[in-house]
């Protein structure tokens, strides 16, 4: 299921091919009782996409759609069950431990919860010097200057260095987390819902910071979020995940103007809009997402899809290219196009 050529002339920095992660009960009682009692959860199901250098790819999905697992698989914080991740042409999955340590300098993660992402017993200076020293980023003498530089880069005051995380607000902690990620001078950053745990007023600041850093440092960013509004203004392209499968991926303008997958359309309808005259006519999507332990056959979305037919219940739709750089996993993407677009 290879990507059919990106519109951009840029070389992809990250290539994900058929990446799959299954979680299963392993060892212990279930092993003694035999495989019959094993339940497998496919968190990431044969996902393929590419991220071009210098690009921000937004990845959207409900909770349980596998977006966090996918992000962690890319950095091998979670070992994928199968599939390939190539970074700058090199296969990450087959790297040895030592090579992986070197590779980790190239890719970093920004975490969801700024309150648990920082070691509460370490001052910001201790935290950053440990990173700089461990990866031999600079000489010991140059460490204070580098820390000052990092703090300035993320818009924190120099006095922040000698304080413990508990003295900072959520937004400031998120900036510290970003500074820690930047300390190794990475080329690729996975930002796992970086603003879902901070105040709305701070969200825009953090997103702008990510944009600035991309422009300043030429970063490539995978931005994971659970709603489209967060990724809309910063992403170059957006991918939509549903129960571990990539159902649609397209340039941002395209996906908002002409979404082709019924799920993407529903997500767009569900986004709250600050318009008091507009009353939600009906729930955008009926029902709950099915259990990932026991996903529906065929197209995972058929249980909630207004366009579902018998074919959807039995046959998994392939990821089809519908226009330049726009791929969708739906048997009825032509019908979906006729469906009134939400915006």
């Amino acid at each position, binding site marked *: 299921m290879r990507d059919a050529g990106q519109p951009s002339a840029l070389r992809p920095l990250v290539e994900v091919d058929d990446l799959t992660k299954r979680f299963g009960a392993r060892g212990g009682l279930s092993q003694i009782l035999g495989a019959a009692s094993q339940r497998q959860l496919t968190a990431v199901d044969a996902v393929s996409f590419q991220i071009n250098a210098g690009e921000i790819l937004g990845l959207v999905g409900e909770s349980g759609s596998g977006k966090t697992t996918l992000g962690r698989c890319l950095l091998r914080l979670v070992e994928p069950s199968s599939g390939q991740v190539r970074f700058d042409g090199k296969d990450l999955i087959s790297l040895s431990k030592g090579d992986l340590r070197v590779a980790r300098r190239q890719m970093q993660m920004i975490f969801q919860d700024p309150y648990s992402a920082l070691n509460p017993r370490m001052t910001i200076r201790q935290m950053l010097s440990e990173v700089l020293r461990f990866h031999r980023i600079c000489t010991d003498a140059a460490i204070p200057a580098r820390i000052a530089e990092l703090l300035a880069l993320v818009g924190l005051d120099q006095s922040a260095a000698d304080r413990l995380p*508990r003295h900072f607000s959520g937004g400031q902690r998120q900036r510290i987390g970003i500074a820690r990620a930047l300390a190794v001078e990475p080329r690729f950053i996975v930002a796992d819902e970086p603003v879902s745990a901070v105040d709305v007023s701070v969200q825009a600041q953090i997103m702008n910071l990510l944009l600035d850093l991309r422009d300043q440092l030429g970063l490539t960013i995978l931005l994971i979020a659970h709603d489209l509004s967060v990724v809309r203004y910063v992403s170059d392209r957006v991918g939509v995940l549903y129960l571990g499968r990539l159902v649609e991926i397209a340039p941002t303008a395209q996906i908002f103007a002409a979404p082709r997958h019924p799920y993407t359309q529903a997500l767009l309808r569900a986004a709250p809009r600050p318009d008091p005259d507009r009353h939600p006519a009906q729930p955008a999507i009926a029902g709950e997402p099915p259990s990932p332990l026991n996903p529906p056959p065929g197209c995972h979305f058929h249980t909630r899809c207004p366009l579902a037919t018998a074919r959807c219940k039995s046959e998994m739709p392939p990821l089809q290219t519908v226009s330049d750089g726009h791929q969708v996993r739906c048997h009825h993407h032509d019908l979906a196009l006729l469906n009134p677009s939400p915006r």
Partner: protein
Amino acid sequence: MTSLAHKPAQQSRLAQMGGLVSGAAILAIILLASLMASHLIPYDPIEQNLRNTLQPPSLSHLFGTDNFGRDIFARVLHAAKLDLMIGFLCVVFPWILGLTLGGIAGYFGGLADTLIMRTVDTFTAFPFLIMVIGVIAILGPGLFGMYVALTLAGWSIYARIVRAEVLVIKKSEYILAARSLGYGHGRILVRHVIPNVVTPTIIFAMTDMVLVILSTTSLSFLGLGVQPPTPEWGVMIAEGRGFILSAWWMVTLPGLAVVLVGVALSLFGDGIARILREGSQA
């Protein structure tokens, strides 16, 4: 952030500081007096004076003398050094062992966890004193046997506390961040996990120390720990047992020393524990 909780916190801070300070003061005085005992009191704690036996407390012998004519005050003071040292070391050794093994079990999980925690279960299955006496029976009575026995009997609780805390900490995102930075397991465990789990173990250690000192004196009383003629409170109480009706001071005054140290340690430990708890909450 804490403006609502400010007032009661301040009040209780005063109360807890009172306990902490008085506990620390009593301990400091006892320790100091014990270290300078040979300068403070002209009597040797071991040398016998059979012409001066069983004297009641007086100005020349503050706590009276025992059946060998030794000054009980001198012996009580000299004993404090030994008892406090045993109390301290017999908490530190199990603490180190429990922290290491509990940390490994919680962090690595799997086989290491199973092996260590089943061992912990085995050790907890024995009542504390039975275990201690059993080990001493194997190694023979004396200081060494007591150190080993109290360490073996005490470490499992620390391992349990540490493992439970590590299981929580290792899921936090800063551990994931440490892994994504490429840090090795040793570095993550020592620099990022352990510093965040020590607080509850120290809080427990503060109460444990009282228990350990009581066990030390009990063992010596039974003749399993410190051996006579070395001055030790349990030994002294055991020696005075036969004279409890005729010379009450021989049993009572060393006994009161145990009570005083126990109370002081409790006050001190409570104060420290509360400060640590507040620090970790903020």
